[in-house]
């Protein structure tokens, strides 16, 4: 639990990448963690089953925002098929921090939200 707020996390929190709504997007996904009040809106631009661009706005804790910034940076350019394989361990490794069960929920908010793309038909 030491140094959860490493430079990587704080950097992505203070200067989140891909922050803001996309001007043109294929779809918009919503996610929230009512337990603690983190919420997120993710715009995705998808072409030929590939994620061409992503943007997000969020309200909540540092971990949830930093996680969104780091994950979406990775996600852009990947196929939907690759997204299917992503699980919580991937996020943990991406963030490079030890997360307690409570904070894990914060970190996984963006993944849980983005994976809703598979609930959308076509």
């Amino acid at each position, binding site marked *: *639990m*030491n*140094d*959860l*707020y490493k430079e990587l996390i*704080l950097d992505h929190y203070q200067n989140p990448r891909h922050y803001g709504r996309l001007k043109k997007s294929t779809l918009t996904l919503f996610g929230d963690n*009512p*337990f*603690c*009040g*983190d919420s997120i809106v993710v715009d995705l631009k998808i072409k030929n089953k590939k994620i061409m661009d992503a943007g997000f706005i969020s309200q*909540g*804790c*540092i*971990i949830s925002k930093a996680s969104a910034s780091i994950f979406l940076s990775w996600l852009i350019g990947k196929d939907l098929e690759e997204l299917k394989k992503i699980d919580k361990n991937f996020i943990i490794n991406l963030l490079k921090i030890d997360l307690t069960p*409570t*904070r894990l929920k*914060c970190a996984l908010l963006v993944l849980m939200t983005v994976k809703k793309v598979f609930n959308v038909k076509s």
Partner: protein
Amino acid sequence: MINVQKIKKDFLIFEKQKDLVYLDSTATSLKPKLVIDKLTEYYRDYSANIHRGIYPISEKATEEYEKTRKVVADFINAFSEAEVIFTKNTTESLNLLAYSLGRQIIGKGDEIVTTIMEHHSNFIPWQILVEETRAVLKIIDIDENGFLDLGVNLNYLNSIISKKTKILTITAVSNVLGTINPIKEITQLAKKINPRLIVIVDAAQAVPHQKIDVQDWDIDFLAFSGHKMLGPTGVGVLWGKKDHLEKMYPFLFGGGMIEKVELKKTTFAQLPAKFEAGTPPIAEVIGLAEAIRYLEKVGLEKIRDHEKELTNFCLKSLKANFGSKIKLFGPQDENYQGGIIAFNFFDFHPHDVAQVLAQDNVCLRAGHHCAMPLHQRLGCLATNRVSFYIYNDKKDIDQLILSLKKVIKILS
């Protein structure tokens, strides 16, 4: 005056963690060695079941278990020991009431009154009951200072309570705002309006911190937990007036709560056995007696005074160091609140504040504290919460301030 240094020696956790600043007794309290030893003694020396065996260790177990019942009855000034029921915790006590009392007396159109500041355990059971029975749930609001919005001399009660109101269920002390509700005065006026009203009090945050007298309050039921008052987890208490308990249907069915079981029907035992089905948490109940003895030795009035002093000091320190950047909830006056302070710190998310503080072993809580309706009412999704008990002192608050300053440094 409480000698905190002396008291901390009774809590072995401080031996291994000298820097522990535990400010979350609202969630659960630390445990003195005496309680742990008493619990272990049962397991080690006489771990027999109660009420069943005729041999010596069973008799000893039964004796110690029933002794606790008397200790609890005296502690809250119950009319008799038979009115004290051991449950798992406050939540179970309140669910027992919703189930055994609520489903018996609540029908369509009946009214149950509660408040917006309740813990989920004293809110959801009634919400569900009202849904099932098509009764009505009235919710008393709070004012901008975190007090129940009951007007001058509680006169709003005149329009809230009526002959249709079957149950008034209310917390003695809010686990978020710290607000101490004037239970005696509210009960007096409410019962004047409706003499048949049943008053239930969630005393989880009150019993550990102040002297409670159920006869003086003239309430009908009281619920509290052992683990918040230096006792073990897994034991709680439901106290109720004998007349009510005798009329109520049992909650759990099984061994120990029967008189006679035949193929086609069963008759139930007298109080308190009727509500204690199965093997109870024997060790935990016995440990609870020791916790109560410990608290009585320190003195409940001294405990209240101690917490008032710490609350006053903490409120002053937070305001002096952070000014308008710290948003404090609740009465902000130690005379009207228990040793509980909820706040938002700058615009940091409570989780992040708690995380940084955790690095200094400063233990406080972040979230909605099982009071989502209250937080919706306050207009925020989550808060941080500190709370005080007999093992806290001003140094703990000084450390809290230092660590909060670190939050600004690390997260800005």
